Structure formats: C-alpha cells, structure tokens
C-alpha cells in the first residue's frame, strides 16, 4: 500500500489504440477487471465505448424537455397576460383571448428554450468549457482529434494501482502506455 500514496501524484494511466474495435474491447476488459473511474477517448462518437465504460444514460433529454416546457408555458402565459389581463384591446373585433393566434409564438418559444437549454445543458454536464485538462500533457493524446483512440484509467479509481494497472494495460496490447501527470 506504500505506492498507493504515490497515486495522487498522477492523474492516471492512458493507453493508445489504433482502431475503435480495440478501444471498445479494451474498455470492456477494464470494466470487467473492475475499473470504474475511467474514460475512453475517440475522434468520433462510438456508442459501444460509453456502454463499455458503464455510462449508459445521459440527462440531456430531460434538460431539453424541461427547457421546452418552460419556454412553451412562459410563451403562452405572456401572451395571455398581455392580451387578457395587462392591456386588453379590441383588435378588429377579435376576442381578447385569441388563443389560436397565440399558438405560433408559443411553439417558437418552446423550440427556442428547448434548443438553448439543450446546448448549455450538454456543455454544463460535460463540464465544458475546460481549457485545461491533465490529458493534454500526454503528447500523443493530441491525435485523439485525428485518428487515435485512448483509454484512460484514473488514479482516483479505488482499484487503481500504478503497478497492477500498468501491467493490466499491457495485457490489452495498446500501441503505447503513458502516465498522465496532473
């Protein structure tokens, strides 16, 4: 347990792969080996990857739903309040509560709020913007936005052991393995 004390010294260990398949298999193996605090990195979305690391549900849809509801309700509410309560006017003999006419702005407000909350929600949940991240220290990691695939097991994982984990990673036959400093 002595070297466990070392663990905070680094962010984690990262393994580099050439194909998405290798990455997914590696991730599945790591998950099977009991690692949880880990993440897979790829130049394009890979559904299997997130499943492999045990991340199955995103809360983005919920955020979008709530945003949409808020937009729709406030949109119609505003119009109703203006035309019926705040400043009722006889417009061309139409009723104060001309709800059919209010549908269009209501709809647009729904879409607008849903879309914006979705974008901000997604970035927030992803913890972005994050200009600094330990992984950026790893020089070959820059190719994650081009053609390389990475699996990173974080030191914060209870099962993480600088030696065992490194050995385990070797077993995954990656292109390379590197320590990720803080």
């Amino acid at each position, binding site marked *: 347990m002595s070297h466990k004390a070392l663990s905070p010294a680094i962010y984690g260990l990262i393994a580099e792969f050439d194909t998405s398949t290798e990455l997914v298999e590696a991730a599945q193996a790591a998950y099977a080996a009991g690692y949880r605090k880990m993440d897979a990195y790829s130049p394009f979305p890979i559904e299997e990857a997130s499943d492999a690391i045990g991340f199955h549900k995103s809360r983005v849809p919920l955020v979008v739903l709530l945003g949409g509801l808020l937009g729709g309700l406030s949109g119609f509410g505003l119009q109703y309040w203006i035309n019926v309560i705040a400043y009722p*006017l*006889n*417009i*061309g*003999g*139409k*009723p104060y509560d001309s709800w059919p006419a209010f549908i269009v702005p209501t709809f647009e407000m729904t879409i607008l709020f849903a879309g914006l909350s979705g974008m901000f929600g997604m970035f927030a949940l992803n913890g972005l913007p994050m200009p600094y991240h330990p992984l950026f220290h790893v020089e070959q990691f820059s190719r994650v936005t081009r053609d390389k695939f990475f699996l990173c097991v974080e030191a914060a994982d209870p099962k993480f052991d600088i030696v065992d984990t490194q050995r385990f990673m070797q077993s995954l036959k990656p292109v390379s393995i590197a320590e990720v400093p803080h």
Partner: protein
Amino acid sequence: MEKESPNKPEAVCPGKLELAEVKQKLARAKSGPQYWRSLEELAQTDGFYEMLHREFPRQASVWPEGSPRRDFLKLMSASMALAGLAGCVKLPLEPIVPYVRQPDEIVLGRPLFFASAMPFGAYATPVLVESHEGRPTKIEGNPDHPAGLGGSDVFAQASILDMYDPDRSQTITYRGAMSTWSAFTEALKGPLNSEKAVSGSGLRILSRPFSSPTMASLMEAVQAAYPESKWVKYEPVNRDNVRAGSQLAFGEFVETRYNLGKADIILSLDGDFLSSGFPGFLYYARTFAARRNPDLKEKMSRFYSVESTPTNTGGKADHRLPVRASEVAQVASAIAARLGVGSGATAKPEHQKFVTALVKDLQAHKGAAVVIPGDNQPPAVHALAHAMNAALGAVGNTVIYTDTVEVKPQIQTDALKELFGDMNAGKVDLLVILGSNPVYDAPADFEFAKAMDKVPLRVQYGLYQDETYDHVHWHINGTHYLEEWGDGHAFDGTVTITQPLVAPLYNAKSAYEFIFSLVGSSEMAGYDIVRKYWQGQMKGGDFDAAWRKAVHDGFVANTAFPSKNVSAKGPTLSPTTGDKGGAPDTEVMFRRDPLIYDGSRANNAWLQETPKPVINLCWDNAVLISPATAKKRGLVTGDVVEIDINGRKVKGPIWPQPAHPNDSITVFLGYGRTKGGRVADGVGFDAYEIRTSDAPWIANAKITKVGSGYGFADPQGFQYIDYSDLPKGTEPLKNRHIIRKATLADFIQNPNFAHEEEESVPPEMTLYYPYQYTELKWGMTIDMNSCIGCKTCIVACQAENNIPVVGKEQTMRGRQMQWLRVDTYYEGGTENPAVYYQPVPCQQCENAPCEVVCPVGATVHSTEGLNDMVYNRCVGTRYCSNNCPYKVRRFNFLLWQDWTTPQYKMMRNPEVSIRSRGVMEKCTYCIQRITHGRITAEKENRSVRDGEVITACQQACPAGAIVFGNLNDKDSRVSKIKAQQRNYSLLEDLNTRPRTTYMAVVQNPNPELEQSESS
C-alpha cells in the same frame, strides 16, 4: 418686353443683383426647407455680397426715393426672417364679433367661429371661419346664410391656404425696390392733382368685378373726384355672355336666379351649376339634392343636360346629350322651336329622340320646369333660355329675375378693349390695377403688356407680385379677405359682411383703404370706411345693435334682391352657332379650371393636388378630347399636340376623356403661370396665349401632334363598372356591387333593390362574442344620390386634418395623401357613359382587417367603435394598408410635412397632430371634433346631441350628402337613414362591418329615352 420692364435691375443699377431678384430666387424655391437652402446657396454668389454691400446704409444713396435703412432691414426680416411671424399673431384692433349664438345643430367649442364672406367673382360667398387663438385655421359654410345654407365650395375651403401663402407679396415696392406707403402717397400726390386738373381724363382703374356696396360708394367718389376717369372691370372668366344674353332678351342687365326646389324638370344648356364657382352654387347644390331624394317618389326631379365639356354637373343628369359647345345653340333652338319659341333650327337626326322626349316632358311640367344656360354659351343661347323659361311659365316660379348683384355691370371684354385702345392712343396717364393680372389673363389679341408699358405711371394693388408686377412702377401689397373689413352681396343679393380674422400678416392696406386714399384727402381705416357706409344705409333704429348683429351673423337678414318684372322682347332671334373663327378643324372649348379657376388660385397646392371633378386629373391642365376622336387622330394619352388658332399656338398634352364630345377639345384656363409662385409656376400650359377677345369660349383650331410621352398625375384613372381595359375574360366589375343603382320606377317597385345580389354574412354568424358599444357608436352615411362630385369634402378634410401635399411626381407614384377620395365610375362605353361619384373615407369597420395585422397595435378599436390610428405607435410596416380592402390608408413615404415655413405653422389645426415620415395615417371621423362634442356633453352631464358633432367633410358638403352621428341614438338622422333600404355597405361580403355606409343611386330617367340610353 422684358427689356422695357422697369423692374429689371438695369433700370436702377445695371448688372447688379437686386433685392427683387433675391426675393424672386427665394420664391422659386419649392418647399420650406428648400426655401431656406436656396437662401444659403444664394449667399454663396458674389452678386449677393455685392448687393448687400450696396444696400447697406452707407451706400444708401444708390437707393431710389432715398428709402431709409429701416426699410432694408424690414425687407430682410420680411422676406428672410419670417420665422418671427409664428410668434406674433396680431389681432385686429377693431371690435370683431365672435359667432357665439349657437344654433342647435352645432356646438362651437373652444375655437371661436366668425361669420365672414369670401369675395369670389362678383359675388360674396358666405363663410364661417374657425379661429384658434386668433389664427384662422379653417373655413366652413355659414348655416344661417340664406345663400349658403351651410355648405361651402372648394375655393372657400382652400382660401385659408391662400392667406398663409408664403409667396404673397409682403411689401410695397417701387420699380421692384422696397418702398413705403408714405412714399407712395407722396409720389402719387402730383399725378393725382394733375389728373384733377383734367378732371381725371387720364385716370383709369382696372379692377375685378365686385358687388361690394362700400366699394361702389368709393367708385362713385372716384367718379365725383375724376369725372372723366374710367373704371374698367374685367375678369378672364367673365359673364359677358350672360349679360349680353339678358340684354338681347330684356334690353337690360338682369340677374337670373333659379329655384331648383320647385323644379320638376331641369334642362341645362351647358350650364355647370353644380360646380364650385358657379354663382349660387351652394344654394343650387342644396336645393337640387333635396329634390333628387327618391323617397319623394314621382316628385323627384328629372335632370336633362345638353353638355359639351364633361362636368360633375352633367354626371348627375338622368339624360346627358354630349354635343360640341357650338352645337348647343342648335339643340337649344330646336327645343325652343318645339316650345313655340322662335323660328328655330331643327335638331340633328341623332338628337331628335332626345329633343322630342325632352320637350314632351317640359310641356308636361309647365311652371315647374327650368332651363339653365351656361356662362360659356353665346348670348343667343341665353336669350333663348330666357324665352323658353318664359314659355314654360318658369318665370316667377323656378326662375326669378332681379337687379344685377354685380355693381355697374359691363360687357367686360369691350370695356377692356376700350382701355387697351386708350392706352395705345396714349390717352392714359395713370393706370391703377386693382387686384387683377391683365398681363397674364387678358385676351391674347390685346397684347396688354405692350400697351400698358405706354402708360407713364402704372400702379398695381394686389396679393402677388405676379406677371403684371413686371410692368408696373408701384406695387402695393394687398390684404387677403381674412385680413380686411369689407362687404358684398351674395348671389341672391343678401348683404354680406366680411370681417377680418387677423390683422394683415404683412402690414398691408385693404382695397377699400387703397381706393379711399386716391380720393380722400385723409386716410381712413377699412373698418371705418365700411362701417361709415352702412351707418348711412341702416337708417333708423339702433345702428350699433344692427351693425353688431350684421357682423355677428355675417349678413343682413331679408336683404335678398326682390324679383323684378322684365319681359322678353319676344323671340325674334336666329341663333348663331357660337362665336368662332378660323379654319374649322377642331373646336376648342375654353373652360375655367374646376379648381384653379382662372389662374388666380394656381398657387394653392390644395387645389392643385385635388383631382378635378370627373376628370380626376391633378397638377395639370390637359387637352381633353373624346376617346373616339383621339383614336381617329391616332392620339394617345400623353401625346403632346400644338393647338393653332389663327397663328397663335400653344402646346399641351392629350387626355382622352370619356363623355367628351367628338371633334372638339377642351382646354382649362389658369395654368402655365410664370410668376404665380412656387406652386403655380411651370405647371401645365397657358391657354390664355390662344384665347382672343372675339372667341373667348369657343374657337376653331388646328391640332397637330408634336410630341408624346407626357406623364399625368391621375390618382384614379378611368374605372368602368361594366366594361374596361381589364384583362380579357375578366368578368364585369359590377359583380363587386360597388355601385348599386336603380331607376325611380324600379325603386318604387322594389325598394330593396340595393340588397338583391349581395352575399353578406348575417351578424350572428360568428364564433366570437361581438363587442358591445353601449354609449356612443359613431356612424356615417353618404348619399350617392345627393353627392355631386364637387370634391369640396376633399379640400375640407385636407384643411381640417393638416394633410400634407405631395406634388405631381409623388402623386404619379401613387402616394397622394388625401384621406378622403371621391371615386368616379363610368358605365356604358366612352361615348356617353353614366357617371357615379362615391366619396370614400375610412369605413371604420367593426371587424377592421387593418387592426389584426398591425404588429405593434398602432391601430385599435375604441369603445365608440372607431378604428383609431395611434401615430406615435406606428412603425410603418404598411401591412394595415395592404389588408385594407378599401385602400383608405395613407402612408408618409417621405417627409412631406413642411416643418419650417412659419406661415404654415400658424395655419395648421392645433388639435390634429402632424404626422411625419414613416407613419401611416387615415380618416378618423374627425376625432378631434368628436372629442369636443363628448367633452361638452360630459360637462353638461348629458349625452351627445344629434348633430352636435359634425365632421369636416359633412360640414363642407354643399349637397348635404354626408350624415354623421350616434347609431345608438335611434332618433339620430344617421340611424334613421341607415334604417332605410337604400342603405348598403361597400364590399359587404367581406364581413368587415363598415360604420360608413352608402345610399344607393336612384336615377329618374324618362321612360321614353330609357331604352336607347340604358347602359
């Protein structure tokens, strides 16, 4: 002749820029803003600085008559720093009497109303003048005046703009340089004394005809002082034919007055008695309309018109016979012969049917028929008319003869000819021109300017430094009738008093004061002159009270001329075919312009921009020609032709006009001004150039095409409800049920004819809960049977609501601003179509399509059901206009309001906000008047009385066609009218539920002629 002009700088100081020129340059500028800009531009020229240096006191020596520096400063302030005016409104010193006795039918709110009279031609038109804080802002009809009956005409309505015209002459000048009244009187002492010596044999006074008793007394005074002098009265649009006619018939000048209220059958021989400017127009319009009400059943009058130039009068006829002006005489004599008057020619075959039926009708209504000849018809026709009226027993019933209203009538052309001769013969030493502009409007064969320049001393008194100004030594700037005390006789002789609303804007003398100064040893104020005269007249009783009442009412009750017994000298006349000369090719008919009149109103932008009755042309006079003749001659709209009358030539653009007689053209007088002002100059062509003394109304000419592509401003164009140049296969527009009409017979049979074919939606057919208008619910009806299409309402609306003028170019682009328009529809070919007039203000729809589409709520409904326009809120998307099926909304595409010219600031109605660029505007039912009525009613804790609120158009309408009021009041006139079956709303099938509705047209054709003319 330019060289001889004493006003040219050469005369005083060669080669230098003169103040006169400065002012001319200023006057050239078109609008207020440019007015100032042009001053700056001017300031850049070397000539300007040079002039300034020369004019400054140090060099005052170069000034003629040694006028002091004060004058120069005055001039500068007058002609350049007018801004001061807006501040200082001067009330006249004399006690003028506000119109406080309120007849039940109108309430006069804070703005005070003064009764006054507008001198027009030889007659006085009664008016009420609305005055805000001492500034006259609006002219209305005087409801109490027996000759006015509450209506007014376009000239009265527009005269307010004349008074505030920044182009008015503002100073006394001598040889074009600024001078003073004292200098003038001094300068004239000598000449006048020498005239006295020769008992005035060298003195000539040239004025327009007038009816003012006071002026008559002054005239006598002049005669007394200068027995040999001659006072010549001339106006280009004169009534010489009328005078000559009455001389032919009775051997003396008499005034003819018609009582259309008693007339069952009216025959007009080119008599344009329903157009502004015809003596007695207001009275005739009202009485005519009254007898055209179909509810009178068979008592509804029938109107035959034998007409040359199409007029709005002819448009009202049940049967109209379009003939050349020269043919009228023939038709007339044919009719006369059948009535047993004169040997009489026989009518042309194509006229036979008309004549036969007409004569039968006339004879059937002896004592209730009337024949009205037109001023432009030769004396013979007038004589015939007198004879016919006698034969029909009209005299005493529908026709009344009285003494002439005009003072000392003359055959004006002859008088002018004599003056012309005297001037050429050098018999004239001193010529005083009183308000007329002979250099512009005298017959072309006189070459008046040349003759005039032979007179040693020429004095002009007038409102404008016009064409004549270039040929006079002294120019005395005159007063507008709203600035002076005066009097006159209405067409029926009723004594009518003119009281001033403001002191003269430019410190001017009134004509009375001016003439008085010629005779009187001392000066006397206009007020005293007029009052003193009437003191002499109103003998017995309390004069002050009588005078006060006269001024208050604007007239002296029961002073209409009594009818006079004259007997026609028997029908021994062989009618000529009208005065004409030259090789016959095309007949030219000279007509006064319906709006510009003889040119004296040419600088009035309101009149210029109002579409002419029937013709719907504005900002131009044109060569009117029948479409058939145009086709025959290969002429199309906009072709420019040269009219050649015995070598005198003028060029004008062609305007094919339906209902115009063939082989003839009509030219309107009054255009082509060269020194008329910023508005008048360069508009149209000058028909006076080819108008000679021997053929003032009808002449023969050659026309040859010399150009093409002239652009007209015609806001409406021609609209046929049954046929037109519409895309082929298009169904007739009558399917739109815009004009609903029937003959009297049909109406009596089926009073509901107006609703036969309509596809209206019943009010209960709605998903909504309709709004309830509980207290006030404004509505308007327009009786298309009464409407005579005179366009007075348009000008009234323009004056009341501060509506800007946009000019010809913008009108051509379809951007005219008048809130109210009078649509004219034709029916049945171009030869002799039926004509319908439909005034269209905002319809004030209850389901207003305009409101729903406004994104900012700038147009919303009021609790009184008005379609309110909130100018401040408007952002100018113009969607409301697109969605308005009646297209009554007007948009300020550019900045058209003149914010700078100080006179206009004084003129505007302070109760109507002035719209600027980018804002939509429209008829509001004169909301400012409604508010006045409501406030008054609330103060007195009662509901608004019927007739308490009168819109501007309603007040102005001489025919009383427009009725406005509260629809919730079941007894209001408007409710009663709307209850009638003739009442219908425009485009009913759109379910806009307009508050403005129309009374369908009912014509009263002669059954015998119906078939042939039914269209």
